[in-house]
């Protein structure tokens, strides 16, 4: 009995780590007050609010909320390309936050280009949607929790003799194993996909997309401020891009910024 309790305490201690790890408790930025930036925003001085938020970024600190607030400032200034850039950056931290999703949708309505994504198979669309429900960290948390539940129930099954106690343990083990397999695959898929994915947003008011990385080559089509696209590779001042509708081409690196 004593051993059982010991084991539980031991696991509880370890499983508590993810909740506190990776965070920094209230970083010390002496002369920065979030209230200042907010009152500037409320007073309509969006450019000043932007520089107030940028100060935090310059000191090496980030948060999804700061990006979201910057996106709002640029939106109010009518710079929809930058607004989309910062909303997309915020999305990496906040995931499917409803405020963020609405603002991003509004900003996307304000831009000139309409890019229709390629149609995809239903099951793949569903799987992708499920994968995007949670951020990578959330998936990782679920993986860790289910993993520990599996471990604990396995140990307990070795210790506990009484058949009356064993039944719920077996149930818990099966549930946690299924959860572990599912969350593990979603976590790995998202992690691998997002680590390789480089995306950018066009900031130039208009940029010609060409067939080769030189300014004399054929102009394929033109893009305008605010279009999000994949960056496939970057070669000496040029980047090969791919749009959601499958179109590809080259544009100068100065025309966009990576999310």
């Amino acid at each position, binding site marked *: 009995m004593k051993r059982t309790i010991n084991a539980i305490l031991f696991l509880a201690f*370890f499983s508590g*780590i*993810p909740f506190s*790890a*990776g*965070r*920094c408790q209230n*970083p010390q*930025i002496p002369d920065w007050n*979030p209230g200042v930036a*907010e009152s500037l*925003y409320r007073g309509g001085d969006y450019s000043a609010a932007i520089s107030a938020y940028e100060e*935090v970024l310059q000191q090496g*600190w*980030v*948060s*999804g*909320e*700061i990006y*979201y*607030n910057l996106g*709002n400032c640029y*939106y*109010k200034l*009518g710079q929809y390309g930058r607004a989309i850039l910062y909303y997309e950056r915020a999305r*990496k*931290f906040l995931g499917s936050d409803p*405020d963020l999703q*609405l*603002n991003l*949708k*509004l*900003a996307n*309505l*304000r831009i*000139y280009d*309409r890019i229709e994504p390629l149609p995809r198979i239903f099951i793949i669309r569903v799987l992708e949607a499920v994968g995007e429900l949670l951020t*990578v*960290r959330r998936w*990782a*948390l679920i*993986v*860790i929790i289910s*993993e*520990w539940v*599996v*471990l604990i129930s396995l*140990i307990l099954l070795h210790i506990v*003799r*009484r*058949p009356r106690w064993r039944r719920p343990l077996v149930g818990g083990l099966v549930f946690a194993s299924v959860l572990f397999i599912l969350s593990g695959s979603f976590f790995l898929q*998202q*992690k691998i996909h*997002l*680590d390789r994915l480089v995306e950018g947003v066009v900031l130039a*008011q*208009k940029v010609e997309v060409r067939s080769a990385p030189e300014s004399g080559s054929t102009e394929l*089509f*033109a893009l*305008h401020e605010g279009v999000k696209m994949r960056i496939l590779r970057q070669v000496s001042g040029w980047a090969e891009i791919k749009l959601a509708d499958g179109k590809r081409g080259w544009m100068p690196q100065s025309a966009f910024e990576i999310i």
Partner: protein
Amino acid sequence: MTFKGFCNSLIVSVLSVFFLGMGGHLYAADLLFTASVDRTELSLSQTVTLTLQAEGSVTSIPDPKLPDLSDFRVLSGPNESTSFQFINGRISSSKSWTFVLKPKRAGTLRIGTAEISSGGETYRTEPITLEVSGKGSAPPTDKPSRGVTAPQPGKELPELFVQVSADKTRIYQNEQVILTYTIFTRVSVSAYEISRLPSTPGFWTEEFQLPQQPTVEDVVLSGRHYRRAVIRRVALFPTRSGQMVVDPLEVTCQVQLQDPYRRSLDPFDILFDSPFMRQRTEERIIETEPLTLNVVPLPAAGKPDNFSGAVGNFKLDVSLDRDRVTTNEALTMTVRFTGTGNIKLLDRPNFKAPSDFESYDPKESVDVKKSGNRISGTKTYEYVLIPRVPGVASIPPIEFTYFNPATKSYHTLKEGGFEVEVERGADESVATLPGIAKEDVKLLAEDIRYLKKPGRLLRISNPYSLPAAYWITMALPPVIAFLLWWGARVLGGTALQARRRDRRIYFRAKRELRALGKMAADGDKLPQAYGAIHKILLTYLGTKLGMPASGFKEEEVLGRLAKQKLDQDIISTLEEIFQACNYARFAPEGADSWRLKRTLKQSDRMLDKIEESWSSKR
């Protein structure tokens, strides 16, 4: 005559009238088909009227096969007239065709036979012979060179003729050639009228404006005094190449002649005789010679791809009304072609507005100047461009290629090409954004959501990178599991093995008991089932107690169990089961399936009890 006879004769006469009527119609089908002329002697400048007439008692007269009129020029005709009569039950109809003919040459000319077919028969007219004298006012028939129908020097000039002159006879396709029609006269012409204009297939024609009253000049031709007036000037643009013939132009003139020999015996005439009265007016028809033009195709060498057929000498002028606009404000680009040549036929310039602009079909206007030496003018295209996106937009230049016959080469003009600064309009409304669904338009009226609290600040650049703690906690469970397993194997040794063996035999016993439940239904196998229960329990207990397999005897097992300090009721239940097994094995009469099931249940529960008391004891 009886009444019957009267009736018969009446029927006969009615029938005979009917048949006679029919017969008359049939028999009178023959036609009278004649050809006649109003005169048989005439001069080259005079006309003759040919009349073909068909008469007969038929309801319809077909069209005739016309005679050979190759020696004549048909000025008018056939003019058809028809008359139809029905008198006393007899049909008579007549039809006539008249032609106004003008002989092409002097001499004895023949009008061939005409044919008409009716009622299965063919009727022919007699041929007619005409004597045409060479005298007349028509110009001589010899072909002039250089496209000028002026009579050859040395030959006698007629007193009245019309001539056509071209400014050149060897021209390029689409190049303009100017034809000038001039009347030369030594007699007094009171009026003239262009009675037939040449049809000009294969040419695009542009007529010059001439003053209402032609200016009359005096010239001397072949030592004679003539008066000359230009009556028509026209520019022709040949649309294809090759030898092209311009048909003759015909002019009808009213010529006033003095008639000094006219004497009348009428006293009133003598009384009122005056020079004025002795004048008479004669109508004369004169015409030009056909004019042959040699049209050369445009050279293929050096012909640009975008050449669209402009021939002449042109200037291109492209202008934009301003170079700074706001979005959704219209810009006007004016493209103006000026020059001599086929200005009306110029194609719309090949201009594609940049993708950021909305553009409409250009407004087109042409102004052709029809005075002066050559056809010239201006063609203007106005493009309305509406920028939709702010930024610096470049409007591509306009390229225009034409062929200049003077230099015999192609020229390409490139004008325009503007940089326009487009500013974001203040009144940028939703409607100007493309491709927005209705529900989204409503959404656009909304404002964005408010700011968020700064949240927890992180020291990372990539939000997808996981802190080390995540990886450690993720990796720990497998490590722990492995360590436990390995440690138990190495450190736990025999105790662990014994426990594993215990678990194995417990599960095996339970499984075997469950399998026996199926035998309970079969009444014949009951003794064997009880034997099996006995053996299963003994094997389980013996193994659990660590006895050798040979010592699995009921008494020994029970004796050993007693030493294990188990609950007394477990031992007694066990003894009860063993007893029941022995009875059933050796005296099978009392055994039934219901009892077997009860024993099996009892044994199963007992196994659990033993396992539980054993583990709690440890």
